[in-house]
């Protein structure tokens, strides 16, 4: 193995950055069981056991925030998951290849828009004063509706804007899986007189199933870590009853109110649940199909 030290040199930066910025902050787990004060540091602060967890679960906010997080995450996962698969199948069967390519390119585009711009655009389109959507409602003789500051519409706005932005990008992976299917399968099916729908049902869907399951596990694993970004930007006083989720709460409590330990406890609770869901989904899919993450 002589002369291999330089292979480790190539790996060194990656190891260093991960050790520092991913492993060192894990001491935050300890913080959740302490009355942490920056002056005394992690080794000097007193341990208080589960105090902060108990405090969080005894607040009236806790139930609401957890419900908000779960509902938003589940709604988002269940509704948006099938769209990229359907789009990929439709593109795969598009008769005019150039048109298909164009649809593909255009549907990727929103992925490159930042969350900031996306929420800004939503503010523009759904504005009660001049937004296109409300102009159409007015033209139809309906009352304008304040989509962006209403508890009833927050979840729909969140999820469907996500579908608008992410479907094209997420479909790439299924599209790639579809293009990897052995063409002789289709030829055989055509000889047997299979229609296009039957080809989708009996060739395409079974072939991309492993990819679908991997993607499902991955999305389920991050289920409870619903993006801080969009919820935080869409949040306002009028919709905070449903838009306050664990990640936005952790940010506010931890970095704005500087209640470090309390925030770390909530964060730990959140990642704990994430991990359990990931393990559960992985187990289920390993039993049902033969696909699993490891």
């Amino acid at each position: 193995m002589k002369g291999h030290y330089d292979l480790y040199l190539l790996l060194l930066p990656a190891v260093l950055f991960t050790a520092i910025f991913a492993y060192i902050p894990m001491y935050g787990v300890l913080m959740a069981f302490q009355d942490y004060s920056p002056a005394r540091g992690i080794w000097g602060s007193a341990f208080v056991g589960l105090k902060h967890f108990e405090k969080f679960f005894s607040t009236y906010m806790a139930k609401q925030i957890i419900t908000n997080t779960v509902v938003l995450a589940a709604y988002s996962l269940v509704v948006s998951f099938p769209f990229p698969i359907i789009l990929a199948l439709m593109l795969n069967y598009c008769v005019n290849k150039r048109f298909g390519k164009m649809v593909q390119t255009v549907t990727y585009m929103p992925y490159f828009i930042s969350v900031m711009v996306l929420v800004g655009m939503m503010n523009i389109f759904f504005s009660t004063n001049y937004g296109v959507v409300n102009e159409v409602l007015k033209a139809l003789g309906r009352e304008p509706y304040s989509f962006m500051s209403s508890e009833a519409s927050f979840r729909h706005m969140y999820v469907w804007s996500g579908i608008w932005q992410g479907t094209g990008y997420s479909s790439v992976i299924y599209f790639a899986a579809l293009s990897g299917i052995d063409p002789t399968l289709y030829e055989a099916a055509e000889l047997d007189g299979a229609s296009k729908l039957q080809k989708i049902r009996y060739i395409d869907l079974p072939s991309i199933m492993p990819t679908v399951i991997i993607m499902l596990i991955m999305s389920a694993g991050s289920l409870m870590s619903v993006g801080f970004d969009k919820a935080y930007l869409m949040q306002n006083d009028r919709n905070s009853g449903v838009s306050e989720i664990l990640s936005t709460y952790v940010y506010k409590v931890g970095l704005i109110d500087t209640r470090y330990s309390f925030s770390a406890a909530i964060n730990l609770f959140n990642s704990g649940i994430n991990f359990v869901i990931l393990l559960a989904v992985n187990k289920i899919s390993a039993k049902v199909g033969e696909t699993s993450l490891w």
Partner: protein
Amino acid sequence: MSKKAQNKKIKVGNMTFDVVNTTILVIVLLIVLYPLYYVLIASFSNPDLVLTGKIFLLPKGFQTESYERVFSNPEIMQGYLNSILYTLVGTCINLAVTLSGGYALSRRDLRGRKGFMIFFTFTMFFGGGTVPTYMLVRKLHLLNTFWAMVIPNAMSVWNLILCRNFFEGNIPSELLEVAQIDGCRNGYFFYRIVLPLSKALIAVMVLFYAVGHWNSYMQPLLYLSDRTKYPLQLVLKNILISSQPDASLAGMNDRAEMYKQTEMLKYALVVVSSAPMIVLYPFVQKYFVQGVMVGSVKG
């Protein structure tokens, strides 16, 4: 049913399928494209017409004043410059760390390979959270510095694994054997042989990382307090989300006019801030599917 009748039935079925399929795709295309198109035409239109909902299909009352205001606003321009710097430097660091690390991990003769993989993948599922990371950045005296924007996120584990998979699948082991017989060092082999063979991977990595840097706002929100260091996304936040009038309107008395100007600035801002990434995309598009496919190979 005779064979012929059956064939006909399938043919009709397939034709219906094609018509329905194409129709839905056209609708999808319009749904995705229209909001983008609308922002573009509205940004060039007369503010009064935009704000009374008169713009639908074509720009009316052509003007470029909104763009002039965007480009003459020092805060926006400073943000733009900052974003370009963070994106350029950040992406270079990302590439150096991820590509070299990914290559080392792809080598089967790397001792402890499995251990390293566990070391990296564990962080995908468990992290310390926002507050401890913030404390660390503070302790390292990175708060409010340029480096806070490019160092803490120097590498994404997901991309590292993507690189490893690509190198495993695309660099023939015979190449390495020949090079080793010639006494070629690993670093040299990586730099002179592996990288030139990995253009598709590099393109996809540039895209992923650059978009990430350009669009990031949580990191600057946490780590920067000096407004002159703000990237574009944070400058946008005040105008797009909080609807704060920009500085040039500070002395204005006419509230209605101020509101109009602020709203109009939004359209031009959306275009100006999203353009760089949307323009970058076509250059790497041809590598895109290939790159994502690499990621789908099980690691």
